[in-house]
């Protein structure tokens, strides 16, 4: 293969950072298998790969959090050994973490101070914080405590914290996963500016279109090994995905013969106060879902999606039975089990801890959600054979890969557990399925299986409500898409009319004011 020439125009022969045969071993498992990568100044370098491909291990090694088992790193041509992140920071390596490394009960300024080396006084640091955040157009109030801030603001803290060290090289781990398309665009402006200032950026993302737009070079990892380094602009999203997965991903197709019949799930003017102080109040939520239809709910995390799920699943009940109607039966006041008996099924966002009890076996987990509606319990005794059969059926139908017949839920990989959790509900052949983030953190292959299963279930006449932060996913499978913002739900748009721009604006709440006036006039 030709040496992929990076775009660094002033490449005086030595890259900013180079890894040579970098290897990280955990027991017999090779998280990174002799990885060679070169980062040049003025380059935005994408790092692509599925979950578990070794991206996080690689960047943690570069940031000094993990010691490599073998191989070496060179910084500006000289051998570099890092005993910890502070040494990495001292050389000019900054990192913005995927799961923010912030402290909820500390203020913005304190959080930033913790990411610096403490050589300047707190006062000077605060002043510089305001200056840096203004220069880059990332406004922050240094005195607010983090728990009060939105996800977008939290990410700003991370970025400003990294920028305050004036880094030569900045690592960003899936920075746009939690942003609206507009917020992501703002971030790209900042990144382009950093590049123009001569800094290098290593950019981890799942979003291939984004990578094609932003990045000059892409390195693709699979199973801990480097597969290729290429120019993402010269590739297609499909060819990049193929390199990541190592095989073609099956295209998801809607089955023919979708029938739209009577409404199976109706929500009438549902309102609910949050039960914890940081929650979102649901206001005037109405929707109607017919059999055979998939309604997608988009929105930035924390706009009431979790509260809506709780209200629909019966984790929280309403005083007014008419707010939720399942297959013609008022169910707003019913418990989870009673709603399941009406034919509804629910898949929450977190698969460990919410969707399953992590330390219990799959069969026991199947029993926990299915006992009321299927014959797994007889006269108070568990029918072990029936629970195991459910596990086997889900395993077979959804290609769940596991070490033994009935392992603990926590021992499965994210994708396989998600296939099991979704499969467990779909196999009950529900009339209504409410599913929250069906493919969050799931590899592309498993995601395709799950999306196809949802389409097939709808084709069989079920009504499906899918909440997702992945717009591409909703556009792919939903018939209509509505957007949640601050506990309100927009009018659903037919997917054909729902452009990313339109949805993005709704996600930012821009048309809410118009809607409110319209509401007032209408009333």
């Amino acid at each position, binding site marked *: 293969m030709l040496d992929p020439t990076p775009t660094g125009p002033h490449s005086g022969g030595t890259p900013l950072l180079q890894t040579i045969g970098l290897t990280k071993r955990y027991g017999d498992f090779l998280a990174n298998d002799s990885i060679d990568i070169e980062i040049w100044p003025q380059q935005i370098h994408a790092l692509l790969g599925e979950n578990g491909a070794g991206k996080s291990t690689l960047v943690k090694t570069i940031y000094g959090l*993990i010691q490599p088992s073998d191989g070496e790193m060179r910084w500006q041509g000289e051998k570099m050994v890092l005993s910890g*992140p502070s040494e990495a920071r001292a050389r000019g390596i900054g990192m913005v*973490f995927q799961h923010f490394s912030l*402290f909820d009960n500390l203020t913005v300024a304190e959080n930033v101070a913790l990411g610096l080396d403490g050589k300047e006084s707190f006062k000077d640091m605060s002043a510089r914080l305001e200056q840096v955040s203004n220069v880059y157009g990332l406004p922050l109030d240094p005195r607010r*405590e983090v728990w009060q801030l939105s996800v977008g603001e939290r990410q700003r803290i991370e970025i400003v914290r990294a920028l305050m060290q004036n880094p030569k090289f900045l690592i960003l781990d899936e920075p746009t996963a939690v942003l609206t398309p507009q917020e992501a665009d703002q971030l790209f402006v900042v990144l382009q500016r950093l590049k123009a200032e001569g800094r290098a950026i290593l950019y981890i993302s799942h979003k291939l279109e984004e990578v094609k737009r932003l990045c000059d070079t892409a390195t693709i990892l699979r199973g801990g090994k480097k597969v290729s380094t290429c120019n993402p602009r010269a590739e297609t999203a499909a060819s990049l995905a193929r390199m990541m997965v190592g095989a073609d991903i099956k295209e998801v197709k809607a089955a023919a013969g979708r029938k739209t019949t009577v409404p199976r799930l109706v929500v009438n003017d549902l309102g609910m106060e949050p039960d914890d*102080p940081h929650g979102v109040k649901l206001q005037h939520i109405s929707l109607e879902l017919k059999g055979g239809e998939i309604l997608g709910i988009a929105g930035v995390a924390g706009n009431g999606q979790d509260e809506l799920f709780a209200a629909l699943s019966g984790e929280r009940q309403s005083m007014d039975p008419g707010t939720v109607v399942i297959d013609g039966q008022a169910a707003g006041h019913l418990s989870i089990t009673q709603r399941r008996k009406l034919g509804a099924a629910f898949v929450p966002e977190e698969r460990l801890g919410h969707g399953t009890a992590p330390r219990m076996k799959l069969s026991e987990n199947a029993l926990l959600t299915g006992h009321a509606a299927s014959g797994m319990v007889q006269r108070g005794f568990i029918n072990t054979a029936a629970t195991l059969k459910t596990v086997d059926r889900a395993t077979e139908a959804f290609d769940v890969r596991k070490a033994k017949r009935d392992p603990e839920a926590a021992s499965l990989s994210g994708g396989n557990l998600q296939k099991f959790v979704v499969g467990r509900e779909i196999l009950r052949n529900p009339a209504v399925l409410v599913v929250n983030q069906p493919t969050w953190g799931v590899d592309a292959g498993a995601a395709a299986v799950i999306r196809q299963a949802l389409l097939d279930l709808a084709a069989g006449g079920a009504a499906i409500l899918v909440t997702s932060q992945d717009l591409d996913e909703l556009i792919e499978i939903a018939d209509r898409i509505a957007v949640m913002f601050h506990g309100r739900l927009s009018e659903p748009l037919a997917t054909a009319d729902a452009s990313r721009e339109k949805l993005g604006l709704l996600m930012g709440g821009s048309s809410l004011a118009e809607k409110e006036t319209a509401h007032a006039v209408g009333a």
Partner: protein
Amino acid sequence: MELLEAIILSVLAASTPLLLAATGELVTERSGVLNLGVEGMMIVGAACGFGGAWLSGSTTVGAICGIAAGTLLSLIFALMTLGLAVNQVATGLALTILGVGLSGLIGAGFVGERITPAPHLHIPGLTDIPLVGRILFGEDAFVYLSLALVIGVWLFLYRTRAGLVLRAAGDNHVSAHALGYPVLRIRLFAVMFGGACAGLGGAYLPLAYTPFFIPGMTAGRGWIALALVVFASWRPGRLVIGAYLFGAVTILQLHAQAFSLGIPSQFMSALPYLATVIVLVLISRARTGGSTAPAALGTVFVPDR
């Protein structure tokens, strides 16, 4: 008025061991470690403190022995929970049981012996002012030390970088580690500080409160100190209020019993504990927004390397 002065003096004396132990535990918990072994560290501190003072004849030596004993015991806790990542609740409970047994063994030879109690401050002129003189200027050194300690801890936690790092470790140990802070080392020091303070608080009892040692003389003060930390919602300032309030209830019930109000003495003895429960309920009801407890409190941390 004489009585009022006497009451206030005894309230301060009763509150000081609680304040000392609770201050140490507050720092430990702020770093994210829940050490339920305070009672055990206090009682061993009491036995060793008395032993040191009795053998040397010096209160200072006694106090140092108490501090050393509490610290040593806390090191066992640190080894288990930080080094071996054992459950903190179970280890803390075991530490208390160990401490109670150990103190009986150490103190067996000292039972019935007496020492000279810690001297009280005397500044001619100031201490002789009626009413306030003895209260403000006539205490033993431990009372002043405990207040200085609280102020010092407050300054440390909120005005120094090291204190900020300690609070960060207690709020989110994964993030603190990701930023390169040595979470386990920070927690080790915090646990040792907690042990030292609990040992000193325990030693205060035989060195200043009563000039002799009896087995089990801490009588649950370690548990009260733990409750006080929650009561104070992990803030040093409120800890002082809580400790003195609790000391006051303890003393008042003694006086109330002396006046024989016709209330069963068992009920009066239970009053301080009842007060703690009521205050805890009120605090948890009044809580709004943010979390007052260190978010990582009681969770085991194993860094990935």
